[in-house]
């Protein structure tokens, strides 16, 4: 545990300030897209994509290109491939995702074992390196957050109807195929960009936990999306500060704070809490 004076000094460092802003933006972005992904049962997709991204990073190392540059096209390709497989195959989506992600993970580990110089960096890939976030990373994450906000705001009707019933959405004029693909590609890009900060193993927590907490608390869709995003950003910020105070790894610290937030949401939404705070209305016939 470090003292507050040391923490103040650390917080004054540009790398730490970038880390905090990066965490805030990544957390908010995860919560924002997670709010729709969770309702559309795409939680496992972000997990599978995170694990498969390791192959993209490995390919980058093998061909001598910055892995971050390879990651985005790889993630988009993965998303399109999975989408095609889901559409064309009669197998369940979770089984297909499992096949694709375990195969790409296995291939990534095999390739990584061939690259002597990168063995030391595997821990950073798995758990992320929020302190290594650059100014360029911040600009990319910020632009993605703005793009995701605009897209989800403009297509809220399409997103909700598509989630509720694809035929209903199509019947009232939603371009179902286009919106499904656009959302998956956006989610893939966000996962790819966030991996540097969050790591392969913990990326799905950024997508799933804040939105599940928001889902427990909210009764209106725009409020739910907003609360999920705010929870994602706040938990990331608090987790990073906790990590700075305790000298513990940043990614896992953020996930533990997210889990704490989820437990609080669970408590607030529980029947017991609601009974204590307001009298329960009569059930409708």
């Amino acid at each position, binding site marked *: 545990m470090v003292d507050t004076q040391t923490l103040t000094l650390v917080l004054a460092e540009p790398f730490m300030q970038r880390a905090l802003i990066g965490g805030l933006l990544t957390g908010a972005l995860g919560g924002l897209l997670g709010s729709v992904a969770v309702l559309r049962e795409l939680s496992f997709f972000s997990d599978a994509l995170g694990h498969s991204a390791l192959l993209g990073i490995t390919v980058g190392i093998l061909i001598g290109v910055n892995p971050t540059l390879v990651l985005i096209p790889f993630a988009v390709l993965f998303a399109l491939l999975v989408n095609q497989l889901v559409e064309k195959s009669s197998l369940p989506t979770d089984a297909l995702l499992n096949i694709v992600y375990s195969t790409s993970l296995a291939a990534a580990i095999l390739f990584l074992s061939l690259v002597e110089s990168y063995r030391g960096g595997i821990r950073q890939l798995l758990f992320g390196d929020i302190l290594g976030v650059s100014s360029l990373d911040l600009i990319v994450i910020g632009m993605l957050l703005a793009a995701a906000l605009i897209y989800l705001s403009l*297509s809220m009707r399409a997103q909700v109807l598509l989630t*509720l*019933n694809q035929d*209903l959405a199509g019947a*009232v004029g939603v371009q179902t195929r286009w919106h499904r693909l656009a959302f998956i590609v956006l989610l893939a890009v966000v996962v790819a960009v966030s991996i540097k900060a969050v790591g392969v193993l913990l990326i799905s927590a950024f997508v799933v936990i804040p939105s599940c907490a928001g889902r427990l608390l909210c009764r209106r869709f725009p409020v739910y999306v907003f609360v999920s995003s705010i929870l994602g950003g706040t938990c990331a910020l608090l987790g990073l500060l906790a990590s700075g105070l305790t000298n513990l790894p940043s990614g896992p610290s953020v996930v533990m704070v997210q889990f704490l937030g989820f437990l609080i949401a669970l408590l607030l939404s529980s029947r017991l809490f609601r009974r204590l705070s307001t009298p329960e209305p009569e059930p*409708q016939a």
Partner: protein
Amino acid sequence: MPDPVVVVRDLSVERSGRLAVEQVSFELQGESETAVVGPNGAGKSTLVAALLGLLPRKHGEVRILGQQLSPNGDLPGAIRSQIAYVPQSLALQGRFPLSVAEFVGFGFDPPGPRWPWQQHQKRKAAVEKALDRTGCLDLRNRLLSELSGGQLKRVMLSFCVVRPRQLLVLDEAQAGLDVPSNERFQQLLLELRRQEGWTVLHVSHDLDMVRRSSDQVLGLNRRLCCSGSPDHTLTPERLIDLYGPHMVPYRHQCHG
């Protein structure tokens, strides 16, 4: 005689690699109610999906309000906004953070991208009116996932009535409803149809209800086996042709 609202000519549709609907032709006249009946797997939902442009056609032509449905299922926005659809169910697994009023509000918005705050006041007023007409006003702040089956179906009718439309398509909308809820839904549908001047196409297994409410019946078993008025179509012989000999014990469902 006014132009029909829907014209289907020689429609064939493939589903899962087999011909699910074959050479089906019919017309829906304005403000009429048509029921599609037939055994499970007869292609009823496939027919509806192809008519709405949700499935590609292998062959044939579909015209809605005078406009031809394109091969990839596209219709101009002005025509699309004249169509309402009630599916069998909604994916409301777990706690779905969407209120009844919000859902009905999505029925008010025309197709295409728009900011959530656009036409807020107009939408709010239209939603209140629609919920009032369907007896669902007291449900407006409830979550969609908290509703009973009967309440959910009435809210789906609110979604349809929140803006003027001409064509209403229902795909086994009464599936899973108990007898009182079914009766209430039917009564409400009949009232709204008369008030709104809807042309209705519905898929149903409830032959008693079809007899009472429909102007036209389409008996489908991949091909159109019979069509016409309920009295003409729901005869014991035609039902046995349509459903097979196991239909015999249910002859009380038809005149005979």
